[in-house]
């Protein structure tokens, strides 16, 4: 089978699943229309009643949203559709579609690897047919966007991540969402998301990429607001949507500028068009502006400062959504897009510096916030923002393959961590506050051990995935010509903070004394197999994923373990990249830096362990000692409040004032003006009516009356007068005869 020719099927499978769910799902779903999705932590009212009856064989009652999947027998009454044939069908169709995509993706990538030139481009059909326009330099160009796919090393990594991790998360969702209402809706959106994400990464031009870009934004919005009856979920969805639109404006502007300057949005053509440009080594030229605008789009989608605020709130969505969309795939779209534009960024060192600085700043900002958050998912959300910052740091210093490498490993361990947190929340009946956890290690061992692996991986302990990619980023930040020691140091500090907050999370959740509420503690249980198997597979990925790109100095393993770099090399090769050869640094420097980053990670872990396990009173005393700092971090640097003040309220109030003024002056003015005009024309019309129309009629009447006046005089009403006229007439006639 030639998978490369069937590449168009890859996005089509999930689209088919989504269409099936969203068109037919509601019709087939036997659930009563009155039931809506029940969020974790919201006790369905009707559960109480049934629990009385099933008390003897079900030991769990505080559970919410049907979290107790393995106690399904007493749910059969509550949710008649829990094991309906439809659900079984959905369970097979939706993950199955993604699995098919994964198989076809793997096949296509395998066949791509066999080819001499690892680029496969195919145009299915023309989407926007040639629109002629004048470029900035006056030349006539045609804007054409095709529905075309481009499979190259970069997009092949992305489709494997999207479909592979996506499939595991779909399987996990089967277990996690088993008792949620709106099952078909959830899977429909999830499949739709995979479709758009695949369109995003497979597109062969920016315009089609933007279609996927907006599509994943839409699915993100829909899934964040999945529990739409909860106000906070709806608000979070809207926030994500609005903040993303801000970034998208930058993307669109960048795209239009690209069209105006380069005359095309097709990746391959953009790349060849850029060959005619010289690197903008000094200051900001038009290419730098283009690059910064595109990067601004990426900050929205990939949650970088200043547009990261939506991602922590996005945790209102179901946990698998957080894992798939808000950790592993969608939020890396910005990284992918910047990497895709590598040829552009290679020409614009100043824009690249902006990317690196924003990335590093976001990384340490988010890590500092994660230090003190108590919601398990929020810690992970800020961790995601921080890790995405790392990726942009790598992009900014020109180490594109490292960014994609970190994207790849991060997809494994962050998806793993999120799914683990989902498993914990699931076990805790919807509890997300780590202050009410603790000592869960032995109660949910699989979750604990997989999460342990994930935490080690993200902390950067040698041998696990996170170490390789993160260490490479730090090394590149230090050694690359565009890097600097400041960027390296920020990255290093972030690595220490990362290790600390992950171990704080682990200690608060799994170790120490249990602080669990008794009614919750009664039914803590390990998750069912559909949830634990993806966890285990992801844990395996988190361990071995990094071995695709071992550090250069690990000569023991030879060159074969640097497969990732060699695989991606053609995607980022360009004359500009050749020009700025990696600065020469001695192997000993790299060893020292590696040792430093590992040491920092271990110190972070040890301090966290000491603080939260051995001496739990220390954090409290520190918190008391530096109260303002803690408040600052706990309240997320008050960024939300500042945005509220500046933009939400500022714009709302200012906009309200403007709108009021507009309303009073322009709208009301228009209405009043129209009224005045009507009155004026009416008065004219009245004048015309009175004097011209009526006047004519009256004048006619008057004229006739005047004419008739002599006749009136004759009509006196006296019969004798009339008789006299008769006689006189007769006499006149006789007289006439006589005289004649």
């Amino acid at each position, binding site marked *: 089978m030639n998978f490369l020719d069937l590449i168009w099927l890859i996005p089509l499978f999930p689209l088919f699943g989504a269409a099936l769910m969203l068109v037919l799902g509601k019709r087939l779903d036997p659930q009563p229309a009155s039931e809506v999705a029940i969020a974790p932590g919201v006790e369905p009212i009707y559960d109480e009643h049934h629990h009385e009856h099933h008390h003897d064989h079900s030991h769990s009652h505080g559970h919410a949203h049907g979290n107790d999947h393995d106690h399904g027998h007493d749910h059969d009454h509550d949710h008649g559709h829990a094991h309906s044939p439809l659900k079984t069908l959905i369970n097979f169709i939706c993950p199955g579609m993604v699995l098919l995509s994964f198989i076809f993706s793997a096949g296509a990538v395998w066949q791509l690897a066999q080819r001499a030139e690892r680029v496969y481009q195919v145009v299915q059909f023309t989407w926007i047919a040639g629109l002629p326009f004048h470029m900035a330099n006056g030349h006539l160009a045609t804007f054409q966007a095709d529905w075309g796919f481009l499979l190259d090393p970069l997009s092949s990594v992305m489709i494997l991540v999207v479909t592979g991790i996506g499939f595991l998360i779909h399987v996990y969702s089967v277990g996690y969402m088993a008792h949620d209402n709106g099952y078909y809706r959830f899977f429909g959106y999830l499949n739709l998301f995979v479709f758009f994400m695949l369109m995003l990464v497979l597109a062969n031009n920016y315009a089609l990429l933007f279609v996927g870009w907006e599509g994943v934004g839409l699915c993100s919005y829909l899934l964040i607001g999945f529990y739409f009856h909860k106000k906070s979920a709806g608000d979070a969805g809207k926030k994500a949507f609005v903040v993303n639109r801000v970034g998208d404006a930058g993307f669109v502007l960048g795209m239009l500028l690209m069209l105006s300057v380069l005359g095309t949005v097709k990746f391959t053509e953009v790349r060849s068009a850029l060959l005619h440009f010289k690197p903008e080594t000094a200051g900001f030229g038009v290419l730098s502006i283009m690059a910064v605008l595109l990067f601004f789009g990426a900050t929205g989608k990939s949650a970088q400062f200043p547009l990261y605020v939506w991602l922590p709130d996005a945790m209102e969505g179901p946990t698998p959504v957080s894992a798939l969309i808000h950790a592993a795939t969608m939020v890396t779209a910005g990284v992918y897009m910047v990497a895709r534009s590598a040829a552009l960024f290679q020409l614009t060192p100043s824009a690249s510096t902006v990317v690196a600085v924003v990335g590093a700043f976001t990384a340490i900002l988010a890590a500092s916030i994660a230090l003190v958050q108590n919601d398990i998912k929020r810690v992970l959300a800020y961790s995601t923002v921080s890790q995405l910052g790392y990726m942009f740091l790598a992009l900014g210093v020109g180490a594109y393959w490292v960014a994609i490498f970190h994207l790849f490993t991060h997809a494994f361990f962050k998806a793993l961590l999120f799914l683990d947190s989902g498993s914990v929340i699931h076990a805790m009946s919807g509890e997300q506050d780590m202050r009410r956890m603790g000592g869960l290690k032995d109660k949910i061992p699989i979750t604990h051990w997989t999460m342990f692996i994930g935490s080690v991986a993200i902390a950067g302990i040698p041998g696990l995935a996170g170490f390789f990619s993160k260490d490479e980023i730090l090394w590149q930040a230090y050694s690359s010509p565009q890097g600097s020691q400041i960027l390296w140091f920020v990255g290093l500090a972030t690595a220490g903070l990362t290790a600390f907050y992950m171990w704080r999370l682990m200690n608060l959740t799994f170790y120490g004394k249990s602080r669990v509420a008794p009614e919750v503690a009664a039914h803590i249980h390990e998750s069912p197999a559909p949830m634990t198997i993806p966890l285990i597979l992801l844990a395996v990925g988190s361990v071995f994923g990094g071995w695709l790109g071992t550090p250069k100095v690990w000569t023991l393993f030879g060159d074969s373990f640097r497969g990732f770099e060699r695989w991606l090399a053609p995607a980022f090769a360009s004359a500009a990249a050749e020009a700025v050869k990696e600065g020469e640094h001695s192997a000993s420097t790299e060893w020292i830096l590696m040792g430093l980053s590992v040491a920092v990670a271990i110190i972070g872990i040890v301090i966290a362990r000491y603080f939260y396990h051995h001496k739990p009173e220390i954090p409290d005393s520190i918190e008391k000692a530096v109260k303002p700092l803690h408040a600052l971090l706990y309240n997320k640097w008050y960024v939300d409040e500042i945005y509220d003040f500046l933009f939400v309220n500022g714009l709302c109030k200012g906009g309200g004032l403007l709108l009021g003024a507009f309303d009073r002056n322009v709208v009301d003015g228009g209405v009043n003006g129209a009224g005045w005009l009507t009155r004026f024309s009416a008065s004219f019309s009245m004048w015309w009516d009175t004097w011209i129309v009526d006047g004519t009629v009256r004048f006619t009447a008057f004229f006739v009356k005047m004419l008739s006046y002599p006749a*009136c005089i004759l*009509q*006196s*009403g*006296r*019969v*004798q007068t009339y*008789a*006299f006229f008769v*006689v006189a007439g007769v006499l006149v006639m006789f007289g006439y005869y006589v005289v004649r």
Partner: protein
Amino acid sequence: MHPITTVHYLALSAALLLIGTIGVLTRRNIVIILMSIELILNAVNINLVAFSHAAGQVYGQIFAIFVIVDAVAEAAVGLGILIALFRNKETVLADEIDLLKW
């Protein structure tokens, strides 16, 4: 002794017509106006009878009888109207009854 000829009759008729016409035109009292009308009608009757006699035929005399009947009917209707009018207007003077003017 002159024989009474048609001319005499016609002269009498003309005189009666003149008197009647002047009465109709000048007298205010409607009763007298009606009487004057009778004079005019009788002037016509004399004419008819005179010519009938002169022609040696009876058609004119028959027509005169019709006119007498007509005069009776006219007098009856006219006096009826007059009484109704008097009941409403308390007057029988023709110049005071001038409602039908513009």
